[in-house]
């Protein structure tokens, strides 16, 4: 049950590690199940570790641990309509179905790992034998238990989409022995016991309603966040030129997240303590010359080396579809590596570092595109502009990055200027939004330009960006 609950938490966007799951198990042992509020606090403290996660956790906890109490009323009317004596029993059936759920819920994992076929078959038969009787006797507790069991057989723990609701309801009904029930009803009808058959039919209809309710709740609980996650995941893979406006917003969020993640992972290298512990070994060695008198103290030092980054970004007409993305990329780069100098060009290059630093993303993008965007590409002149502005400051610690499709309208691709950068800089990286198969077709000068690059790579999705940025930061440290 813990495993299943953890799964639900994960669906609700709470990150739960296996170790935390173990902790949770320990908590169940120390605290037990009966005191709900303490259990909730305790589990919340072990499993949810940010404020947002706490909220999500509270919701998930309420839904998950109330299911056993809530379910019976859904079926109850059937019992009450004809059988009032069931009232007292129903109290018991609640708790019982609750515990049944707990043990039942643990099963899907095991079943999923192996032996599903044989196990499923057996218990399916067991349910078969009783479904008719259960309905006849209005044995709600048994029905509940059978439903839970059938649900785990049907693999409801893997439910992902609302559209699967019908399928799961059907599967559960079948696992509970629907075919057999139908056969019995037919039999009764033929045998002349129409009244009993009618009763059974009613029971079946009610049961079907109950199962649907149950499935709906279960799926709702499990899929709360899956939709969004699926979408984000898909977006991060999708080709950038295919994005539409509405996706841009989510995309921006993604890029921001990405930049933040990278920044937190790498920012600490920037501020290493200059002076810390005495380095005894180095001190000794340095002072051998002074006859062992410790004269010069050597301190443990950490070398801090920040890369300088120069980015040249194409915003011309030929890459209009992806230039926004490029700019976003530049913007996030700027957040992660404050020493970045950013240039954009179509026919002339211009520096936009200040714009990126001072404005927010939207404004910066607009400004950059208005000022420099849309023209026809001229790599040669732009490279020259870039060289005039930066070539003097390029040294071995510098990384030069070019974002563009290398299509220079059959003009000078500027590869000779790039060569100069290549000779001076530590690295030259060319990121091309086009897939490698169309490089060097038409006016693409990837071959010429690529000759003077340390890396060249296709880059047209967020996944690519993440990889490139990460590599870059790692290499630079």
């Amino acid at each position, binding site marked *: 049950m813990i495993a299943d609950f953890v799964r639900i938490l994960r669906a609700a966007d709470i990150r739960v590690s296996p170790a935390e799951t173990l902790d949770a198990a320990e908590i169940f042992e120390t605290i037990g199940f009966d005191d709900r509020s303490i259990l909730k606090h305790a589990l919340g403290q072990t499993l*949810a570790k940010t404020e947002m996660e706490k909220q999500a956790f509270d919701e998930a906890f309420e839904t998950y641990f109330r299911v056993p109490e809530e379910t019976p009323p859904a079926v109850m009317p059937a019992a009450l309509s004809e059988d009032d004596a069931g009232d007292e029993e129903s109290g018991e059936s609640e708790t019982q179905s609750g515990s049944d759920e707990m043990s039942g819920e643990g099963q899907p994992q095991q079943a999923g790992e192996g032996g599903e076929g044989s196990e499923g078959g057996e218990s399916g038969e067991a349910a078969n034998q009783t479904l008719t009787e259960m309905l006849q006797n209005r044995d709600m507790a048994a029905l509940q238990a059978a439903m839970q069991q059938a649900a785990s057989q049907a693999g409801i723990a893997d439910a992902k989409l609302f559209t699967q609701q019908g399928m799961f309801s059907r599967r559960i009904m079948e696992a509970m022995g629907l075919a057999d029930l139908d056969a019995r009803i037919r039999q009764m009808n033929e045998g002349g016991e129409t009244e009993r058959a009618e009763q059974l039919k009613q029971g079946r209809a009610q049961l079907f309603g109950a199962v649907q309710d149950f499935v709906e709740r279960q799926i709702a609980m499990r899929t709360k966040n899956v939709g969004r996650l699926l979408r984000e995941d898909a977006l991060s893979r999708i080709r950038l030129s295919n994005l539409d406006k509405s996706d841009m917003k989510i995309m921006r969020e993604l890029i921001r997240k990405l930049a933040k993640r990278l920044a937190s992972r790498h920012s600490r290298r920037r501020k290493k303590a200059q002076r810390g512990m005495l380095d005894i070994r180095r001190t000794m060695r340095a002072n051998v010359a002074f006859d062992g008198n410790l004269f010069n103290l050597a301190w443990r030092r950490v070398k801090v080396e920040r890369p300088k980054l120069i980015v040249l970004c194409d915003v011309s007409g030929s890459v209009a579809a992806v230039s926004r993305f490029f700019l976003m990329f530049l913007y996030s780069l700027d957040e992660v590596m404050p020493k970045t100098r950013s240039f954009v060009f179509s026919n002339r290059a211009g520096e936009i570092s200040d714009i990126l630093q001072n404005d927010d993303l939207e404004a910066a993008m607009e400004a950059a595109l208005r000022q420099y965007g849309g023209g026809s590409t001229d790599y040669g002149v732009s490279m020259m502009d870039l060289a005039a502005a930066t070539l003097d400051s390029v040294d071995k610690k510098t990384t030069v990055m070019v974002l563009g499709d290398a299509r220079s309208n059959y003009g000078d691709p500027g590869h000779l200027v790039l060569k100069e950068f290549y000779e001076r800089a530590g690295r030259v990286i060319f990121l091309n939004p086009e897939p490698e198969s169309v490089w060097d077709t038409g006016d693409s000068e990837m071959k010429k330009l690529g000759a003077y690059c340390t890396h060249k790579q296709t880059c047209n999705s967020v996944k690519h960006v993440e990889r490139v940025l990460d590599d870059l930061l790692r290499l630079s440290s």
Partner: protein
Amino acid sequence: MSKEKTARDAIEGLMAGYEKLGYVSDEQIATALFLAQQLEKPLLVEGPPGVGKTELAKATAEYLGLDMIRLQCYEGLDEAKALYEWQYGKQLLYTQVLKEKLGDLMEGAATLDQSMDKLHDFEDVFFSEQFLQTRPLLEALRADDGIVLLIDEIDKSDDEFEAFLLEILSDYQISIPELGTVKAKKPPLVFLTSNNTREIGDALKRRCLHLYIPFPDAARENTILQARVPELDKSLRNNVVDFVQKLREMDLKKPPAVSETIDWARTVVLLNMDVLESDFVKNTLNVLLKFKSDIESVESELPRLMRESQNPKQQNPKQQDAKESGAAAE
């Protein structure tokens, strides 16, 4: 069943015990304390400044009758300041002394080889306990009968310090390269506090229980005031709490925390006020609010706020009821 009973009892016992010490907890906090002791896990306490995170650790130390070691984190804190350092001065002196004594030591050694052998026989004390300067973390591990270790404002420290804490937090041991691993005699009860100025790493979070203390609701704040500023009479206390709760609803840069409420209540007592007057409130807003812009925006709203907090019964009778029952429960 019995297990659950004891858990519930223990938690309620904790709450009562803390209240005697002047720390008003609630079920959430008490559960966290109970778990931290039961599972021997560090407790990461988060919440806005001034809700009593540090106070919680202090109260725990008092409650358990243990000493408390406090490690205040700041940017640039490293293991030399948190864990241990070598006493360089002494070490330098030692080498000097050693050099003088070297002649005696080497007596009888005819060749260079023999003197080298003698030198090797000589016990190496250069990196030994004698020259070790312990710092808070090492002290906490060496404490004989348990200790409360408070690592305050962990979010202020650097990432690498956080990483360095991991070993201590999960196994209650630390490795000193020159000496080996030091294991805690008795696992200390560790509190980490954070104001959330930066996100704490997942690895650290995973090892801790996580307790979030929000601003208290009116009833709890009332109880806290009663415990902390008993001189304040009841109706005035209600007014104070109401006013502060109102302030928190406003859009302020830094809403007043519990510690500020207490300060303000003390001010009220100190100035012998019988009722909250507009002028008094206006003049003492700086106790509650720490930003000029906040004070200005509250001043303009003051008449409305005063009207509402003077007649809280009409405003929200429910809240008032809760408060009274809370007070009565004591």
